[in-house]
């Protein structure tokens, strides 16, 4: 849900920042993922957030990690994950082509394969995609895959 997504993720963002100021060190990815799951779990039987989260982070000693957190507060550490209508297609592609120790180029290539699948298989495929990378230098936008450019006159 769009409203839940913005509210919830911003709330998590600010609490992660607060932790850093209070304690002088940033939250580890695992800790942030567990905190997020905890918030979802607490709200679940009162006022559930309809938000699915894939949380990616980089820790100095551990390296990169990815967490799958769904709207009923499932938490799982994964190598690859997907949410949404196109998830089955993506997961199938990743099962076929993923191997551990892939380079950035190989990973982007796999992402592009997934995007191609979504575009060709899904009736309600979204037109545009953004690819972001998380590594020792932080999180940043890497590329866009646009099939419909934003309207200049709109």
């Amino acid at each position, binding site marked *: 849900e769009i409203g839940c997504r913005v509210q919830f993720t911003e709330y998590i963002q600010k609490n992660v*920042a*607060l932790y850093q*100021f209070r304690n002088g060190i940033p939250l580890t990815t695992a800790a942030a993922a567990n905190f997020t799951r905890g918030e979802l779990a607490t709200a679940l039987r009162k006022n559930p957030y309809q938000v699915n989260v894939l949380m990616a982070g980089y820790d100095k000693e551990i390296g990169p990690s990815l967490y799958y957190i769904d709207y009923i507060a499932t938490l799982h550490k994964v190598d690859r994950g997907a949410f949404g209508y196109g998830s089955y297609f993506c997961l199938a592609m990743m099962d076929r082509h993923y191997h551990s120790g892939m380079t950035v180029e190989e990973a982007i290539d796999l992402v592009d394969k997934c995007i191609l699948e979504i575009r060709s298989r899904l009736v309600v495929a979204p037109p545009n995609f953004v690819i972001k990378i998380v590594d020792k230098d932080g999180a940043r936008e890497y590329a866009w895959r646009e099939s419909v450019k934003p309207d200049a006159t709109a």
Partner: protein
Amino acid sequence: MARYDRAITVFSPDGHLFQVEYALEAVRKGNAAVGVRGTDTVVLGVEKKSAAKLQDSRLSVRKIVNLDNHIALACAGLKADARVLINRARIECQSHRLTVEDPVTVEYITRYIAGLQQKYTQSGGVRPFGLSTLIIGFDPYTGVPSLYQTDPSGTFSAWKANATGRNSNSIREFLEKNYKETSGQETIKLAIRALLEVVESGGKNIEVAVMTKDQGLRQLEESEIDGIVAEIEAEKAAAEAAKKGPARDA
């Protein structure tokens, strides 16, 4: 008179709130803290009590703290009270970012902290916070540096340079005599010179932090402080020699 200092909510006949005044006494006994505002830099310095032999000073809490990326705080007085205020201020900084999608201005967070301190002068069964704070920061959009001070009564004001805690009057006098618009390293030197008026010289007795618009808060290493103190002492010695020199010739 003594009857009017029991509960905080009671005025004395001559219009004093004794608990607030006693809180100000507590501040006057606390370690000295000084703040100096430059054109592009704001500096905070605090007196550091020498650590006991067995105390692990690497892990001990620093006295100058970040409230947000662009705001820092130092205080004089009851350090335990400080932890509570600092925690509430940090939460408010993030809460403000969440609700209005903007970082706080220095004035806003000063007003918030002062408001908290005031609340505790007008409630039953509580005592005021026994500390005065020096708050520095840069306005998130205009980039203008600021220095504010709050005290246990809940008043706050903006300053070009100020001191609080032990011997703050002497430091303030020194600042009034020697303040001029400075930037960068000069601002740091002025702050350390002011603090050296009342503190034994040496990096292990002073803690200094510098805030700039682009780099946020930077705590100075002991060696760096020692270096600047040495510079200051050399300048002082040169000034003394210059004063004596011509007199001897004449």
